[in-house]
């Protein structure tokens, strides 16, 4: 009896701290956002003045150019960068799994960008891509071409931010896919080589299908993080030129903090939370359909 009671106490004691954190600093802030979204909030003498706004904040969302541009660019950015990263990472992992000498060295170098703060990645590439003195501009100058202001032109800015993200995050996909490839059973390859399969046939008909679960899980993980992109955009472009690289996190930041419209910023946040819930439900349903392995 005393034993059972001690076990129960232990069970509660171990879970309570995490529960407290998730409720106090996770659930409460979200509820706080929901509450704020129905008010217009003005800061007066370091105190918030809440004025009832009803649904006005929500009504203003569809007409907000930064919201629609932000959402659209975020989706384009996340899809483009995840697809490019997955393809590059797959080949890198494939090559890396085929070499014996220097594999650890390659891996060490190739995962370095992953450990660097997003803001530092932004700083590095802001300098590197600078049209006046950046490395890429100088290289174009060597072959007699005019330097391109990758981040300053509306046509190329989003593409440039995607490429910076590819540089930053391909290492993550590479690492996961490499672990996947190294874990594949050997005997299938031996059987294939006895049957006289060529390397590209092995790649296409054995490695790729067997890697599919790993590829899917990695892509989903990457998409979740890519959807939250903020640091690189903050430093590289500030959402510009115009709204060319406006992403949704940056829209929330601008509305909420730069313009001090906490009510409107909250309404946008709540809408994004709703969209994320929708994505989550769809993803879980899709996983149920695919009978994938438990994540």
């Amino acid at each position, binding site marked *: 009896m005393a034993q059972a009671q001690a076990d129960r106490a232990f069970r509660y004691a*171990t879970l309570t701290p995490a529960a407290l954190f998730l409720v106090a600093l996770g659930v409460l802030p979200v509820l706080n956002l929901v509450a704020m979204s129905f008010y217009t909030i003005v800061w007066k003498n370091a105190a918030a003045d809440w004025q009832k706004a009803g649904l006005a904040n929500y009504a203003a969302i569809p007409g907000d150019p930064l919201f629609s541009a932000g959402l659209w660019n975020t989706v384009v950015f996340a899809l483009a960068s995840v697809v490019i990263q997955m393809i590059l990472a797959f080949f890198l992992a494939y090559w890396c799994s085929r070499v014996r000498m220097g594999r650890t060295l390659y891996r060490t170098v190739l995962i370095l960008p992953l450990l660097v*703060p997003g*803001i530092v990645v932004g700083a590095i590439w802001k300098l590197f891509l600078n049209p006046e003195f950046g490395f890429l501009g100088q290289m174009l100058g060597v072959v007699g071409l005019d330097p391109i202001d990758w981040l300053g032109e509306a046509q190329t800015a989003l593409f440039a931010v995607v490429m910076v993200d590819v540089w930053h995050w391909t290492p993550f996909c590479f690492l996961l896919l490499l672990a996947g490839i190294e874990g594949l059973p050997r005997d299938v390859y031996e059987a294939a080589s006895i049957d006289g399969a060529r390397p590209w046939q092995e790649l296409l008909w054995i490695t790729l299908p067997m890697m599919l679960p790993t590829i899917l899980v990695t892509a989903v993980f990457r998409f979740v993080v890519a959807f939250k992109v903020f640091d690189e955009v903050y430093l590289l472009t500030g959402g510009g030129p115009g709204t060319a690289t406006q992403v949704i996190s940056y829209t929330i930041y601008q509305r909420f903090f730069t313009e001090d419209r906490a009510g409107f*910023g909250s309404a946008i946040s709540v809408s994004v939370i709703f969209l994320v819930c929708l994505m989550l439900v769809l993803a879980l349903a899709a996983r149920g359909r695919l009978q994938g392995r438990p994540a």
Partner: protein
Amino acid sequence: MRRTPALAAHVALVLSALIVMVPFVWVIGAGFRTQISLLMGEVWFSPTLASFNDVLFSRASDFVRNFQNSLIIGLSSTVLCLTIATLAAWSLGRLHWPRSVVVLFLGWSLLFHMLPPVMLAGAWYSMVRAVHLENTHAAIILAHTTLNLPMALWLMGVFVREVPQELLDAANIDGASPWMALWKIARPIFAPGLAATAIMIFIFSWNEFAVALVLAVKQTATVPVGIAKYAQGYEIQYTQMAASAALSIIPAVILLILGQRAIVSGLTSGALK
């Protein structure tokens, strides 16, 4: 596998490694230039330590303090987050909670992990002001702990599964309390997982920008917040930006050299198990 020449793979890998390294090397090089030499686009330059000097020792620069802040915040939130997450992962994984509790807990963590942190920063900001923590490290430590809790829960959830039940049963029969069993018997077994998770959380905290930007004041600003300052201002201080970027990579390089195995295991088991 052995039949294709590995040469093509080596060539491709060396090229990729170059693409990774060239921006690093070029920016570190830019840190050793003068602003004029950089802006003139000189290919050959005589290196100077002026920018590093400026970043590290000038009175106007907060870099050293930012570095200390990042260390304080990173280490504190790592210890806090790791403790909370390990207990919770142990509880959810080994102590027979009803399925609904486990699903609710992990489901909420998953959703929370998907939300852009910047939106939570606004709510945290008003909460921090309400309890008068706005000028303290504690505000950012608590925020980073919360942000990293889902990731830590998953990772530790994977690692605590590796402890054999027979060992715990034996400990129970010998009269060990559940705390003793967790601390004395289970912990040594999942210690490598603990290390991997700790390194991951520390890196995430060290790198985090959006929340620190909102919650930090001058005295508590972290390294990313400090570096972002160089990029703004009326006249961008390019060489100082390069020098501070180069300096802020140092912890990542040290961790990569000392703890690569832990990093790899942390990243891969979080996603693949």
